């Protein structure tokens, strides 16, 4: 049985927040690391549940509490993150539904599960939000978008944004953007890895050792991204700034254009977005 002792009071103060994670996989782990590192929530206020200890060990190392009981997470938390695999979620929701009340803020990280579905499977009036993070949340350089359900208000949105900004960029969007975010940034991270790999291979071909090439490739992407974010300039302008007339860069860019790289990337984003839409319908 679950110890139903003194439940935590409802509060919007982040430092007094009791945060629960149903599911303790990589994405959840990334989020909690961000929260803890930014000092948003003390580890002892965090409770995570998972079927096995496999994932939970890492959480304990961080100082979080762990359990195998999803209901316990709901009873002992006000902010509940749902971080299960998509096909498991409906069962989990059915399980925890009796314990969900008006004090709860339920935030789903589960890919492809719409707010409509979440609200249908939870008690009416539940404050629900849906978030789509991406992998670099684990290093606090994530890109996340979230949408609110019918009963989630400005306070809840502001709380979520304030908490998760510790993991990177966090913006509220209409729910229709979430699948696009998947194509752009959720999957987008993989495109970048592919690009980095190819850059390094090019360098290896030209005679540089692989390990060095990989590190330089990664730093190049990091530096370019940082300049984009910090200067706020249009990428086309930044690109032009690097291209001295008749120089190496413009020669290389010509090769990229010949390969229709831009269109291919657009195709990729489109494919991932469409796939996300299709999967959500299943």
């Amino acid at each position, binding site marked *: 049985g679950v110890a139903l002792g003194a439940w935590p009071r409802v509060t919007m103060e982040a430092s007094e927040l009791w945060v629960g994670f149903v599911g303790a996989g990589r994405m959840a782990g990334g989020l909690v690391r961000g929260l803890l590192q930014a000092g948003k929530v003390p580890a002892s206020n965090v409770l995570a549940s998972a079927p096995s200890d496999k994932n939970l060990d890492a959480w304990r190392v961080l100082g979080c509490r762990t359990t195998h009981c999803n209901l316990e997470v709901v009873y002992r938390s006000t902010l509940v993150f749902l971080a299960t695999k998509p096909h498991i979620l409906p069962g989990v929701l059915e399980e925890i539904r009796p314990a969900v009340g008006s004090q709860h803020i339920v935030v789903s990280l589960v890919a492809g599960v719409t707010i409509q579905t979440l609200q249908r499977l939870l008690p009416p009036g539940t404050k629900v939000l849906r978030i789509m993070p991406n992998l670099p949340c684990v290093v606090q350089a994530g890109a996340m978008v979230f949408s609110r359900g019918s009963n989630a208000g400005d306070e809840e949105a502001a709380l979520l944004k304030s908490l998760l900004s510790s993991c990177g960029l966090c913006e509220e969007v209409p729910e229709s953007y979430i699948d696009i975010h998947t194509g752009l940034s959720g999957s987008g991270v993989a495109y970048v890895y592919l690009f980095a790999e190819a850059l390094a291979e090019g360098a290896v071909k030209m005679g540089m050792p692989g390990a060095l090439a990989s590190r330089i490739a990664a730093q190049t992407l990091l530096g370019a991204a940082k300049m984009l974010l910090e200067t706020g300039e249009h990428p*086309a302008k930044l690109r*032009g700034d690097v291209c001295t007339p008749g120089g190496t860069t413009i020669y290389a860019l*010509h090769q990229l254009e010949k390969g*229709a790289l831009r269109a291919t990337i*657009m195709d990729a984003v489109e494919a991932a977005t469409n796939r996300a839409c299709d999967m959500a319908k299943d």
Partner: protein
Amino acid sequence: AGVLAAHKITASSPDTDLPTVSGLRKMGVNFTVSNKDTVKSSDVLFLAVKPPIIPFILEEVGPDIEPRHIVVSCAAGVTISSIEKKLSTFCPTPKVIRCMTNTPVIVREGATVYATGTHADVEDGKLLEQLMASVGFCTEVEEDLIDAVTGLSGSGPAYAFTALDALADGGVKMGLPRRLAVRLGAQALLGAAKMLLESEQHPGQLKDNVCSPGGATIHALHFLESGGFRSLLINAVEASCIRTRELQHLADQEKISPAAIKKTLLDKVKLESPSLSVASASKVSLFTSKTKKN
């Protein structure tokens, strides 16, 4: 453009039947069949013949070139040094300016660049710039950039005409009458070019400004990207520039005597159907400066 009075302009061509000749005459330009007369009555000499004919023309008018003359060559791929070399046998310090312009000078929206030769003064360059600025954009450049300019703005109008023809086809396919399609396509490009010239913004930003999320334009752009639109344009500019250099290289290797060129090319010129461009039709067309001698 009102920069010069027509009577201060003299043009010459051996073939008086060309449509451009009558056009010039109608404008009030003095016309002669003698290149020598043209040189004598001018201060600024535009050499607007086809590149292979330049050496032959220089041989012919060389003796009449005086220190006051500014010789402006518009011939693609003909270097300043080759002109100076030819003229130096007649005149120790010939003033030579090389320029590259394009056909829209006809509607006073030309794109012109010029490079000054060894003995051309700053004022000579400025005079040319003043003349050419009256028919569009004109700026000075280093001579080694002129081939690139040829590839970009020299040939550029042709790329635009091709694009416009195709855009019009697209319009017609989707139901527009041809004339309207052409008119709208041209206006779209004209307007876009004007926006870019008047804006501080990068063309990429201006493009973004037109693309509403999930809208028509971004769908269309995706097609352009898929077809390698950008690389095609880069290829085109590159090809034109490289070809210009090749032609220049061939011209520099002139192993044939001027006399032999004269006969061959004279025949060739007569056989070629005259185009409407002033530059290619007449043998030598010259514009005087403000100080006309008569």
